């Protein structure tokens, strides 16, 4: 990582985290209210983010040969597989239990929401167990090839 990438990542994080806090996505209660159909605000957050990001992702690679400070535009590669869908189903269960997902948990920490440290620690643990299972020969052959 060169200095430029680091600076961009840091600034991106600040904007991302501020947006998450401003939209109250850092409050697990607001997420749970959305999931129980009491307040549909999360749809506006997701919709607003996707509405701004879609033209950027679709047009920039056509307008520019390369990003301003780097060699190539990255790509989000998702593959239709039982890992993608099964993992998403599990992720949803976890999200529904605590109202916490990775971005808002990390940003919430900065906004003083200390109790989410429990969720963050558990997420790290969950990611470790997943990676350990995926390191087994049979499992990894399937998952590594499919997630380039």
């Amino acid at each position: 990582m060169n200095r430029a990438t680091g600076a961009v990542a840091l600034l991106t994080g600040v904007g991302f985290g501020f947006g998450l806090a401003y939209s109250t996505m850092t409050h697990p209660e607001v997420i749970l209210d959305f999931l129980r159909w009491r307040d549909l605000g999360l749809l506006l957050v997701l919709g607003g983010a996707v509405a701004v990001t879609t033209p950027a992702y679709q047009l920039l690679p056509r307008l520019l040969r390369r990003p301003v400070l780097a060699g190539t535009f990255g790509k989000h590669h998702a593959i239709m597989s039982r890992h993608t869908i099964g993992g998403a189903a599990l992720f949803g269960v976890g999200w529904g239990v605590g109202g916490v997902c990775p971005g808002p948990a990390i940003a919430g920490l900065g906004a003083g929401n200390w109790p989410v440290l429990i969720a963050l620690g558990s997420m790290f643990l969950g990611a470790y167990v997943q990676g350990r299972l995926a390191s087994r020969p049979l499992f990894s052959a399937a998952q590594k090839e499919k997630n380039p």
Partner: protein
Amino acid sequence: MIDDWFPNGAAHYLIGGMLIGAAVSFAFLMSGLVTGMSTVFSAVWSYVSRRSFFQQDRFTSSRRWRLTLAVGLVLGGLLFVVTGGSTFQTHVRWWQLAIGGFIAGFGARMSNGCTSGHGICGLASFQLPSLAAVLTFLVTAMITARIVALIGGV
């Protein structure tokens, strides 16, 4: 009718979401980075675990900027409070945070994406598997959240 759907107002949701989109677009414009958040967990484990899954190039080559992004996220939350936003501590029960965090962490990494990776980056790249993932986790989360309310969760 609109007030029923958005009892806490709608503007802060939309503005916050567009800010998030602007940040994600900025990373892409400047450095070509696709900024899903959950990958940071596997990327951080690549520093300490020799297991083959964690030592994949996609984690080891991105872990520094992903960790930097996460630090920025914390600073962004702090900036919100410093500039007059209200601080907040959740009353969600500890067992909800512990169990929910573990399953969400496991699932997001198995799925290779979470609300930001599949939800924002995947949808904005017109990735059908991401759309399928988003619809799947919305359904399982809505069912789970109702069950959790029944058994004493916040």
